[in-house]
Every structure is written in C-alpha cells, then in structure tokens.
C-alpha cells in the first residue's frame, strides 16, 4: 500500500518530466529542427537517448543550488509542488512558449514556503532572478561574437555551399547531443529531486554494474522527459527556431553553441578551478536559464544585422516569451499554494512538517535545467 501511495506521489514528478521534455528539448534541437537541418524524428530520438544517458550517468551527482531556496520536507508537499510546476510548464508548452522549467520549480517552492510559513532566502532568490536577465544578455553577446567569428572563417576558407551545409548540420547534431546530455544530467534533479528521499526502488546488482535506487528513479524520470520530447516538443521548437526570427542554418548553429557556452561558463566547476588555479578571478557559478540563453542568442543574431534585423524580429512573439518568464514563477507559486491547500484540506495529506527536513529538493540540480 505504501508503495502504491509513493508511486501515486511520483506521478507528478513524471508529469513534470513530461512537461520539461516538451519544453526544454527546444534548447538543444529547436533551431536545428526549425531550420529543417535536422528532421524532428531524428532530433527527438537523439535528444531522448542522450538525455536518458545524461540523467542516469551524471544526474545523481547534481544536488545543490536552489535547495537553499527551500527544503520541502513532506512527500505530499513534494508531489504538489512538482504538480504545480508541471502544470505551469505544460500550459506554457500548450501555447508554444519556451518557459523555464527551473523558473516554474522556483515558483512552486516559493508557493510551498508561503504555505508552510518557511522563510525564503531572499538573497538566493535575488541572485536567481538576476540570472534571468544575465542569461539572455550573455546569450546575445556570445551569439554576436560567434557569428562574427564564423563569418570571418567562412570568408577566409570559402567552403562550397554543400560542404558548409554538411558542417553546419554536423555541428547542429553534436551541439544538440551535448545539449540533450546536459539537459538530462542537470535537469533531472528538477524533475525527480523532490522524490530522492522517498524512492520506492532498491539498489540493483547486475554483475559488474550496480544500479542505485536514485539512478532507477532518474531513469524513470528521464523516460518521462523523453516521452515529452516525442509527444509535444515540436511546437516549442518551431517557436524558438522560427517564430521569433527566421534563422539561417548557420545562425541556428551559433544559437545552440552560444547557449551551451553560457551554461558552461556559469555552471562549470572545472572552469572555476582552472581559473582559480591560474590565479585569475573566477566566474560565479549561477543557475542560468537555458531557455533564456537561447532566446537571447536568437535576439543577438537579429540585432547583429542592424536595423534590418531589428525589423525582422517579431517583437510580439518576444513580448509573449518575455512575459512568460515573469509569469511562469508567479503562476507556479499561485498554483502551488492553491494545490497545497487542496491537498492538505481536501485530501487530508500532510504537505509539510514543522521540523523534519525530508526531501531537500534537488531543485537546482543543475543550472542548465533552469
């Protein structure tokens, strides 16, 4: 009976995983699919495969970051918070807007904090909110620089139209695979982190391999993400890659790479150690948003073209996306608060415990998932 209850609670995490797959796959493959350089079935297959690999092999290590924001300490509370975040992202996906799963999770945690009377670390919240501005700005700057560099390289080497097409396609596939791996490794914490402490699975010993309960949990979550990619991500991919600004395949590649660079710079502990080792100032590790970095990069490409590019940007679509960035955490917080009230008072579930921290939400499992 306890197992069934746990599995029921787990369902909201799977729903959040599905929502994340539907929305965040566009960061890795959106521009490639929208520019018709990669077919959607190919993108969906590669994205699903590599995000599952990323989630299972690297996902379990990610358990820091936004947990400072709030520690959900009861399984029904975790279920409800995950459900609120999932509903928010699913709704954004339904209207074709690239929302940030991390923002939705932040919103739902704040909703839980408000409901349970737990304090919200305003310093952490401010730092996270700042990244929502920094991320697109950096994405735009990187995209501009990268595009200039690529154009200079192409002018120098004069590749044949077909060779350029092949190289761009290969670049898009590699960047997409890398992005998918990062999505799985960093984003799975957002999806299943709520339930790590309550995993219904036991460690499995398969000869030379040992599969921990957390890895099994993350595998299930990653499969839910993969289902989201296959079933519902196409529309958001088209918004990212085509609705805001019609991108050339080369620009599409620049967008994906600059988005990855933004994530790498602000999430790589290896880079931080390297810079520190050389006595250089380190780049602060901030949970930046992949979705916002992509949109910033697309804008950067448009702005690089001068007034012509500015006219080509569909500002109405951008307005919709930007308003989504503001409304996503708010909606998630409101839905979370209301659902917590319902779960506690209608279903009689204990959504928080006054003293015992049960599941430190692994929310910000990784910056890329934001």
């Amino acid at each position, binding site marked *: 009976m306890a197992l069934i209850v746990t599995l029921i609670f787990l369902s909201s995490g799977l729903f959040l995983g599905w929502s994340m797959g539907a929305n965040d796959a566009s960061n890795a493959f959106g521009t490639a699919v929208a520019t018709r*350089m990669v077919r959607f079935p190919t993108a969906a297959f590669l994205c699903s495969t590599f995000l599952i690999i990323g989630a299972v092999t690297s996902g379990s290590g990610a358990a820091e970051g936004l947990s400072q924001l709030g520690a959900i300490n009861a399984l029904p509370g975790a279920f409800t918070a995950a459900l609120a975040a999932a509903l928010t992202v699913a709704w954004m996906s339904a209207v074709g807007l690239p929302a940030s799963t991390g923002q939705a999770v932040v919103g739902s945690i704040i909703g839980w904090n408000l409901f349970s009377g737990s304090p919200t670390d305003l310093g952490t919240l401010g730092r996270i909110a700042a990244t929502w501005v920094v991320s697109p700005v950096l994405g735009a700057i990187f995209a501009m620089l990268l595009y200039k560099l690529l154009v200079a390289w192409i002018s120098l080497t004069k590749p044949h139209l077909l060779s350029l097409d092949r190289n761009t396609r290969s670049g898009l596939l590699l960047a997409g695979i890398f992005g998918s791996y990062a999505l799985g490794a960093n984003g799975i914490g957002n999806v299943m982190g709520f339930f790590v402490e309550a995993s219904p699975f036991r460690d499995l010993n398969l000869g030379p391999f040992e599969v921990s309960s957390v890895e099994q949990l993350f595998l299930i979550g990653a499969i839910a993400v993969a289902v989201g990619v296959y079933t519902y991500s196409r529309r958001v991919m088209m918004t990212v890659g085509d609705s805001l600004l019609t991108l050339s395949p080369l620009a599409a590649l620049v967008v994906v790479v600059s988005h990855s660079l933004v994530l790498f710079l602000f999430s790589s502990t290896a880079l931080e150690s390297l810079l520190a080792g050389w006595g250089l100032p380190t780049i602060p590790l901030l949970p930046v948003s992949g979705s916002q970095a992509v949109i910033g990069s697309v804008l950067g490409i448009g702005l690089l073209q001068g007034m012509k590019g500015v006219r080509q940007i569909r500002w109405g679509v951008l307005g919709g996306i930007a308003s989504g960035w503001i409304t996503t955490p708010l909606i998630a917080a409101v839905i979370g608060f209301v659902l917590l009230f319902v779960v506690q008072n209608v279903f009689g579930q204990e959504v928080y415990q006054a003293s015992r921290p049960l599941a430190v939400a692994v929310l910000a499992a990784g910056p890329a998932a934001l």
Partner: protein
Amino acid sequence: MANETPPLFGKTRFLEGLIDEFLDKITEGVIVGELGLKAYLCGQEGEEICLEKLHQLIEIKRRCSELRRTIVTMLYTEMLLPDARGDVLRLLGSLFALLDDMGDDFEELMIVQPQRLPEFGADFAELTAMAIRSVQAVLVAARTFFRTPAAVREHINEVRVFEDETDKLASRIKRRIVAADLCFEQRTLLRETAAMLDALADKAENIGDDLSIFAIKRSL
C-alpha cells in the same frame, strides 16, 4: 560517364562533383554552340562541320539533363540544403534551359538555313561572341555562387554590360538587314537570327537577376 550512385559516405563531395560536372558541361555546351553558330553564320565552314557541332551540343544537353535529374533527386532524398535547395534547383534548371534553348535555336537555324551572306558574316560573328560572353559571365557567376556568394554581384554586372552591348549590336544588324537589298523571306530569316542571338543574352541576364537574389539570400 561518372557513376551516379551516391556512396554511403562522402555524399557531399560526390554531389559537389556532380554540380561541378554539370557546370563544366554547360560551359562546354556553350563553347560548342558558339563554334557551331559562328561556323554557320559567318559562312566559313561547310554544313557537315555545323551538323557535327549540333550533334555534339545535343549529346552535351543529354548529359546535362541526366546530371540535373541526379542532383535534384539527391538534394531531395538526402535532405541537403534545406534553405537554399529551391534556389539551387532553380539555378541549375535555368542554366539547363539556357543551353537547351541555345541548342534548339541552333537546330532550327540548321533546318531553316537562312542564306549565308558574306557581308553580314563579321556582324553575326561579333553579335554571337557578345551574346556568348554574357552567357559565359552568368556561368562564372553561377560557379561563384556556390563558394563566395558575396562576389556574385561583380559577375552579374558583367552580364548586364554584355547584354546591353548585345542589344545594341542586334539592333544595328537588324537595321542593316532591313536596309539591305534582299527578298522579304531572307530579310525576315536574318532578322530572326539576330533576334535569336539577342534573346540568348536576355535569358542570361534574367538568370543573372535571379542569381543576384539568391546571392543576397545567402549573404552572411
């Protein structure tokens, strides 16, 4: 004849080779066509030489047609150049149509066989050379499009200059033909021949105009 079955690996290079071969063949066809037209219109060569050039041109057209079909099929089946595919196919189609029209005009000339008059030989040689220069300039522009789209504009300008000169030459020849002491049939046939050569340059200019748009779309 090249093997046209695409390899498992290296499809891009294979297709690049096909496009290069297509452009080479078009260039070859234009040279053969020029030689044939000049041979007939200048009245220096016998009919059998002209017919030989015509057969050579027909054979080149056949090969170009095969190549174009293979390129079209490969571009679609391999999903290559999703953003520029339409432009590339249109360009190759237009270039083939240009050679095809040139071949048809030459064939028609050999059927109708207007009288070859020595006093117009030099004029027709000059007109043919100028029209062919505009065609050759557009072929250079087409080759440039595949590697340096930004440089296409310079060649397109050459096409326009040559086309303009062809117009002037054609107009001058037509006036001379009309003023000459010839029967109505001869005057009509010679005037139509001049118009045919003029039209060749016009077609080259039209392709150049399309090409300049394709190049703008590809500019980085």
